[in-house]
């Protein structure tokens, strides 16, 4: 029989205990009624539906969950959370799973994670997000130079993208005092 690899942390405690500790959610109260999945705007794009993710966690299928596309397609809009008759904060579970996946190094060449990292860089650099720079850095990282060039130019022309980061009037004026706190 093939050996199933289970994360140490998840072995020491049960999966449900770990999830409870990190997200405050009791996954064992899920009935699998699929309300989360029916309310999800992107469930069709996922490899496992949200209710399946919860069931897999109940069954201890941590590896499959952490390697799934689903956790990266979820944008935490909280529709699932709002609909849940058992008061499960599914969006918080997904957030926890994304952090776990990164910690467990289950994330390689992931578009969403790469994008987030570039946004964080921007926030650390300017204290605010510089959308134009974020988009350009992301496109360069993905070596995708042409797919959105028309939209990008149109947005630029319509002044929806700005050369300077928000709040700064001149190029020297980039860093906010946010640095002191971070």
């Amino acid at each position, binding site marked *: 029989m093939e050996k199933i690899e289970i994360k140490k942390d998840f072995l020491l405690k049960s999966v449900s205990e770990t999830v409870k500790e990190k997200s405050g959610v009791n996954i064992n109260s899920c009935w699998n009624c699929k309300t989360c999945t029916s309310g999800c705007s*992107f469930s069709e794009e996922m490899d496992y539906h949200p209710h399946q993710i919860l069931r897999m966690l109940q069954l201890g299928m941590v590896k499959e969950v952490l390697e799934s596309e689903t956790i990266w397609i979820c944008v935490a809009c909280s*529709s699932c959370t709002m609909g849940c008759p058992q008061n499960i904060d599914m969006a918080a579970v997904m957030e926890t799973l994304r952090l776990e996946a*990164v910690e467990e190094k289950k994330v390689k060449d992931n*578009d969403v994670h790469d994008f987030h990292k570039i946004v964080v860089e921007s926030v650390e650099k300017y204290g605010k997000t510089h959308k134009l720079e974020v988009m350009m850095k992301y496109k360069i990282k993905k070596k995708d130079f042409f797919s959105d060039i028309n939209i990008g130019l149109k947005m630029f022309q319509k002044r929806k993208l700005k050369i300077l980061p928000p709040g700064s009037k001149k190029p020297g004026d980039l860093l906010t005092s946010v640095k002191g706190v971070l």
Partner: protein
Amino acid sequence: MDRISKVSYFPGCSLKSSGADSNYALLSFLEKSGIEAKELKDWNCCGSSSVKGIDPELSDKLLGRNLSLAPEKMPMLSPCPGCHMKLRCKQKEYAQSPVKQKKFEKDQGKKFNPDLDVINFFDLVPQLEKEGAFKSQQKSLKGLKVAVYYGCMLSRPPILKNDSNYYGVMERIVKSLGGEPVPWSHSSRCCGTYLSAAKPEIVKRSVETIMSGALKGKADCIVTACSMCQLNLEMRAEKSKVPVLFFSDLISMAMGTSQRKNWLKRHLIDPSPGLIKKGIICKKAS
């Protein structure tokens, strides 16, 4: 409740870049309605959708810093639904936990203010309605069929479950301006936020569903509550295209023609032909 006449103002990154016009429209509207809005000095990004998933500690500090900048004795207005949700949740989280308050005070070097109210523009709507702020002299949206789009704004994490919701607020504004909200099924479907950049194909398919839903509902336009939704719907629409207005566009309409010139030109899907056909604007104004 007392009349809110003074607020501190957190615009957020979107309203300062892609939504600069909306920001302007909103601020002029507040001024006209007798609400003084003072921008927080040197505010920082709320962390957007990205920071929390990469560095939760940094996310706490970013949100905490903004909360610490808010002056006392007035609510803080954050018109962007994304920023608002994060700031409001964090404020509540701190207010409920003395342990977290201590952490806040250590991070920010300031005392936590448990009385700070973080509000959205929609929280001001009941007050504004009472004062007749949306009743322009003419019914400016007369005959316009509007698909009202809230996106994820109506969904909330458990910590906010007892707060009042915004169901029907935009419908009321549209109606009071003479427009007609149409029934349709996608008013609270998520716009995809950052997936629009990271996984555009997914968002294209989703936006097609939203757009064709609006067409099926015979809507002349979609009105969004968030500038991110507005941008995503416009930029990822391919086959079916319905003009997408941001709710501050409605506000501009409530304020009269002089405010319209700017925002009409900024749309990726030009709303003017539809608006001219319905007689909402005349050719000259476009």
